[in-house]
């Protein structure tokens, strides 16, 4: 574990273990933003991008394993949001709906991709923006995350970084809660094993 955690002082690690709440976690502005997009306002679309693009891009990246594909997924998802603006006001939970369409488009993009196309060296994780001197080697952990299956990666991402429960993941991905929980457990167990072996 030292190899990945390097020589981090334990206090520093503890201080960074909890993610700070982001704009994504705040439920207040979503309804208003969706209503703005439904009314055809461009500034609402820009606001929606600022609120949601990070999580949507992260999910697309963890599902497709490719930065270009992930960017294409985000573009396509926003175009779909604009095209379906008439139904935005009826959507119960905008955040989970956005992740749901991101997931669907990511699957389509992955299927369209030619199998011979080489994948880049995936940067699944990076040091937080305000903490460039993070004690954890992001590149090495990314290489371990890349060895998970796309389905496991997706569920681990949704649980850890989008803050979704297993039942919410199940609803968004269209799979039973038990399957979502099982994929998460298997993914995390695999990751633990890989980290232990890498240490």
């Amino acid at each position, binding site marked *: *574990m030292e190899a*990945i*955690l390097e020589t981090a002082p334990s206090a520093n*690690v503890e201080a*960074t*273990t*909890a*993610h700070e709440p982001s704009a994504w976690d705040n439920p207040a502005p979503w309804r208003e933003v969706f209503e703005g*997009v439904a009314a*055809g306002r*461009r500034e609402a*679309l*820009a606001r929606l*991008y600022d609120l949601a*693009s*990070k999580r949507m*891009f*992260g999910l697309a*990246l*963890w599902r497709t394993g490719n*930065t270009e594909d*992930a*960017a294409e997924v*985000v*573009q396509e998802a*926003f*175009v779909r*949001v*604009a*095209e*379906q*603006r*008439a139904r935005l006001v009826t959507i119960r939970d905008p955040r989970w709906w956005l992740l749901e369409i991101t997931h669907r488009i990511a699957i389509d993009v992955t299927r369209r991709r030619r199998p011979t196309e080489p994948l880049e060296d995936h*940067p*699944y*994780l*990076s*040091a*937080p*923006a305000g903490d460039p001197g*993070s*004690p*954890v080697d*992001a590149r090495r*952990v990314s290489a371990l995350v890349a060895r998970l299956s796309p389905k496991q990666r997706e569920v*681990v*991402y949704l649980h*850890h*970084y989008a803050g979704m429960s297993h039942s919410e993941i199940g609803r968004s991905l269209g799979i039973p809660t038990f399957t979502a929980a099982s994929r998460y457990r298997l993914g*995390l167990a695999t*990751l*633990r094993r890989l*980290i*232990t072996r890498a240490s």
Partner: protein
Amino acid sequence: MTDQRQDTDTILATLEPPGPPDGLRDRVLRRAGAALDRPTAQDRWSRIYASRPLRAAWAAMVLVLFVANIILPRANRRSRESFVEGAAGRTPELREVVDVPRLREAYVSFDALTAPAFAGSRRKEKTS
């Protein structure tokens, strides 16, 4: 195992997925903005729901079914009654066949056989 779990959680919590690349925001807003300017694309079910001819056809069908529900049972009852009456008027034997006996008011139920009055009349028949 608990240590391993804590370590994995710590690693995942310490790092975070990278944000979208620079320039994506402009591309997304340009494409999505263009989509926003186009008229709203309706899906198939919305188009069917909003279709005026289909609504008119649906209303006409409901009206036809409603009227048929009222008219057809009456016409059927009338034709059956007239058939029975006509047949019975011509041949009394046919009335016994067509008319269900248990629906006749004058029909004597099976219980009546055990009634005292009826039993007495049967005894009289024997002695005579």
